């Protein structure tokens, strides 16, 4: 059961867009993903690091990176703050103003998160968390959108900005190809002070705890990377608070994919419900229009009927009146005629 939240989210996303991706959809649970069992990691003990830059040199060599401007034995480089780049997958920075007597050195490289932000945001899955520990990159599918760089809370991936057509995203691979062959990562092998320990992450946490327990005055009681961003394969021990050596302590313990899981889980709901809602609104509008139309029609019909009826009555009344008028006129005429006749007769008699 090494199903991660990622796969579940993948399923959700896939369901959301209605695609038929045939990948096992793992059941989600309230179980906390603690990394793949027996996966590898590296424990970095800052109390042992002397800032010799041997790890940088080894990294440069095993990854066939371009030669640096200043040689690796030039330690003045440590005086400027540096970050990882396309020509250096790991860099060591020096921190002087700490509570510690003397400077503290801190090596930076990809932390190989248990649930990496970079891999969760990669829309072509060029970045992947392997079961053996390393987070690997496949340049043959990378589109170059640089969302991984936006997402990485540790600011690790670097981009070949000066490659016009084939830019890659580059970062530490934990020497995945060397691990496969049974070799140690380049930096671990090169470290003369055993500040770097390679092994199974679970074992490394035990080792780190043991050191803290044994020398409580030497270490801060915190293994950086045990829980940060859901846990990382690279673990750190420090003599000073981590923020004094430029490591963020405000990242929280939430694994990156859960930051976006809520938004992704809404997608299928919108796809499922929006058409229903919108069709409903359309239906209501149509119905209103239809009813309004019908009401208008009945009103018109009623009005016409009423008008017809009234006109009929009026006509009848008018006709009646006309008839009556005619009758009275006739009667009058007759009466007048009779009167005339009656009036004429006595005249005759008189004359």
């Amino acid at each position, binding site marked *: 059961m090494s199903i991660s939240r990622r796969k579940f*989210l*993948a*399923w*959700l*996303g*896939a369901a959301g*867009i209605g*695609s038929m*991706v045939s990948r096992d959809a793992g059941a989600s649970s309230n179980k906390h993903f603690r990394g793949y069992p027996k996966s590898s990691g590296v424990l970095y003990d800052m109390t042992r690091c002397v800032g010799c830059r041997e790890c940088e040199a080894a990294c440069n060599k095993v990854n066939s990176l371009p030669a640096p401007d200043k040689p690796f034995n030039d330690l003045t480089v440590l005086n400027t703050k540096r*970050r*990882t780049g396309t020509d250096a997958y790991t860099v060591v920075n020096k921190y002087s103003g700490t509570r510690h007597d003397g400077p503290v050195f801190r090596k930076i490289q990809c932390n190989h998160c248990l649930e990496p*932000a970079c891999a*969760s*945001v*990669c*829309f*072509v*899955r*060029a970045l992947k968390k392997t079961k053996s520990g390393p987070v690997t990159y496949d340049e043959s*599918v*990378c*589109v*170059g*959108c*640089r*969302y991984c*760089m*936006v*997402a990485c*809370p540790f*600011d690790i*991936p*670097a*981009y*070949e*900005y*000066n*490659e*016009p*057509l084939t*830019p890659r995203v580059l970062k530490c691979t934990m020497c995945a190809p060397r691990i496969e062959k049974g070799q140690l990562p380049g930096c671990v092998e090169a470290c003369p002070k055993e500040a770097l320990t390679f092994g199974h992450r679970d074992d490394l946490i035990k080792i780190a705890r043991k050191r803290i327990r044994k020398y409580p005055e030497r270490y801060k009681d915190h293994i950086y990377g045990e829980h940060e961003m859901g846990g990382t394969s690279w673990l750190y021990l420090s003599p000073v608070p981590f923020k004094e050596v430029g490591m*963020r302590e*405000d990242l*929280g313990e939430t694994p990156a*994919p859960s930051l*976006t899981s*809520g*938004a*992704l889980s*809404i*997608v299928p709901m*919108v796809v499922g419900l*929006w*058409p229903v809602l*919108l069709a409903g*609104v*359309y239906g209501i*509008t*149509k119905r209103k*229009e239809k009813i309004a139309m019908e009401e208008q029609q009945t009103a018109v019909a009623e009005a016409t009927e009423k008008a017809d009826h009234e006109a009929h009555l009026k006509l009848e009344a008018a006709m009646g009146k006309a008839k009556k008028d005619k009758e009275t006129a006739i009667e009058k005429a007759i009466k007048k005629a009779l009167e005339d006749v009656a009036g004429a007769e006595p005249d005759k008699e008189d004359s």
Partner: protein
Amino acid sequence: MSEEITTDSQSWITPFNVIAGIIILVGLIITVIRFTKGLGAVTHLSNDNPWGIWIGFDLLCGVALAAGGYTCSASVYLFGMKRYHSAVRPALLTGFLGYFFVVIALILDLGRPWRLPYPFIIGWGTTSLLFEVGLCVALYLTVLFIEFSPAPLEWLGFKKTRNIVVKLTLLLTILGVVLSTLHQSSLGALFLIAPSKLHPLWYSPYLPVFFFISSIIAGLSMVILEGSLSHKVFHHKMDETHLSECDPLTLGFGKAASLVLAGYFTIKVIGIAAGNHWDLLSTPYGLWFLVEMLGFVALPCFLYAVGVRDKNLKLIRGTSALTVCGIILNRLNVSVIAFNWQLPMSERYIPSWMEIAVSVFMVTLIIVFYKFIVTRMPVLYEHPDFKNSH
């Protein structure tokens, strides 16, 4: 046809054409440099600042301001506001052009743009919000193309095809609203992954909701703004329906925009309350946040309301411009200004002039294409053969 050509050649050298020509030429030169020397030669992007204004402006603002297409077609075809019908075509056209040039801008920004279909062919990185954005934008661009196609089809005289497409209106409108809801919100959700980089006043679990609601505001305001601009420029191209519907539309959309702005202001305040970030309001970033909230959300909300009450069309049109500026400000705040806020100033991103020139290039192309299409196709007037046939 020959008449058209002669009139064209007579008035070819206009101030508009000259300026647009220069911008396009500069844009093309920068494009060539981008594809020969790489992004590093033309942009100020760095490993700490992988996204600049080509994402912050071209993509985020482009998509938000192209929201007029779905807001307008939804109000007319779904919510039954038929008296605004004449506004749908211009809105769909700007929507389509907006999205189309978002994709063109992405071609410059992406490392290997020809791999743009990879997410849907080999990658299937469905845990990525960018996957959702990409898929929805691709589908919605297609939907917008079909939705707008009756105009070119009428122009070309393809009656049968045109009538089939018109029958699909309802389906396409619903599909358009679904896809817009998804990708407008997902553009905000892109930044959910980086709570450690985006300033807490702008970072919120509600980012997708903020982006979606503000896209409605952007859509409504853009329809008003475009209407008033094209009224000035393309007055002679408009038929009586269009001219008579413009004022009620400005009033109606102004009213809607005022209401949605009020809702948006409320949920933004809820966002601050939910994160309990009140104390941050007195910091410099807090003041900047207040500028956005009061000057570009609360103020336009109020001005729209006053404009509608007084039937002051001029005020409403001015407010629409202010609101559009507010949307641009918000998108730039989230993606550039308040992003990586904790880095020292020397490590912050400030766009190069060439990045700005390319953004101007994209806006110019949209205007040129808009002008080309509305002077030829039945967008601002009804085709005489198809009067009242919608």
